[in-house]
């Protein structure tokens, strides 16, 4: 059982805390000779596979590194465009590592605000009166659990679909937030949480949740 990541969103929809607890490595490295038998394209400032799924390289995977050197967005480490670089036969054979592109901090901010609006729409489209927003969103590979406090702060946890007692974890995170962020005199409300004790306690809460799945009374 794993917990993938934790997000804290303030009442305005701004991301004030994010922690990646576990990032699965779905990567594939392969050496290619000219011509490249995959079709690559630019997408969201990255180079992604658009056709030619094989050997663990899937459509949608981004180019992570070329010949062992990490790429930066859509250009190689020395600033050349990746697509141009891979068109040149003299650069072959070339070893390319593909994988799911990790989210940049900008993307995380955007996704957090996006969830904030989805949460509100979910409650507006309710067929029953008095509905909250999205509390749990299920996909085949992960479940997203969201807990909104009375003051409008949202705690979001992404976990394995089989992970139990996330509700207890969300309340524990709220408690940690109240104890170590709100009671910290240097913390200003609605602003990003940069408190060492908050980090430490959150990490240990996640560990406990992954192992046992409950916090016991008064923990």
């Amino acid at each position: 059982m794993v917990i993938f990541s934790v997000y804290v969103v303030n009442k305005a929809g701004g991301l004030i805390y994010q922690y990646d607890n576990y990032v699965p490595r779905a990567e594939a490295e392969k050496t290619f000779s000219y011509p490249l038998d995959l079709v690559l394209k630019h997408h969201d400032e990255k180079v992604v596979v658009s056709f030619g799924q094989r050997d663990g390289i899937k459509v949608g995977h981004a180019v992570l590194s070329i010949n062992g050197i990490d790429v930066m967005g859509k250009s190689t480490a020395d600033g050349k465009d990746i697509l141009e670089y891979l068109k040149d036969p003299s650069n072959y054979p070339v070893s390319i590592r593909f994988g799911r592109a990790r989210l940049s901090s900008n993307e995380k901010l955007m996704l957090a605000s996006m969830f904030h609006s989805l949460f509100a729409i979910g409650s507006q489209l309710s067929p029953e009166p008095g509905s909250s927003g999205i509390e749990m969103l299920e996909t085949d590979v992960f479940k997203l659990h969201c807990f909104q406090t009375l003051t409008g702060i949202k705690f979001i946890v992404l976990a394995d679909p089989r992970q139990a007692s996330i509700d207890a974890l969300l309340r524990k995170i709220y408690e940690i937030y109240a104890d170590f962020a709100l009671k910290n005199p240097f913390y200003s409300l609605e602003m990003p949480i940069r408190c060492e004790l908050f980090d430490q306690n959150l990490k240990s809460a996640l560990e406990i949740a992954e192992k046992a799945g409950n916090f016991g009374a008064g923990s």
Partner: protein
Amino acid sequence: MTVHNLYIFDRNGKCLYYNEWNRKKQAGISKEEEYKLMYGMLFSIRSFVSKMSPLDSKEGFQSFQTSRYRLHYFETPSGLKFVMNTDLSVSNARDALQHIYSNLYVENIVKNPTCILGNSLDSDLFSTRLDTFIRALPYYNPRTT
């Protein structure tokens, strides 16, 4: 234990079919607006989920729940989207949605020469059979209140 409503959207976001059974609250906007809002929300959830997902997913988004209802989502490879809102006691309605697609939509719409694909589903046979099917679901049990 109840079914609130059902939406069917085509791949372009047009609402082909809508019906409601036990719906207590309207969204407070016109039906057309509501369809657009629903489709827009699903479209955003799909893109949200594909970006947020830590692993490669096959099916993607399946359902979400709030404190009062659960939304079940099923999408065919051709982009047809089936959305059913039920109460929280229904944990999985995928089979029902799959059945609506393969046994009702395909049989009564796709195989019906007078139904033009991409138009609203106004076939009476389809609506009656769908209504019978929904009312026969084990979790369809309109509350007496």
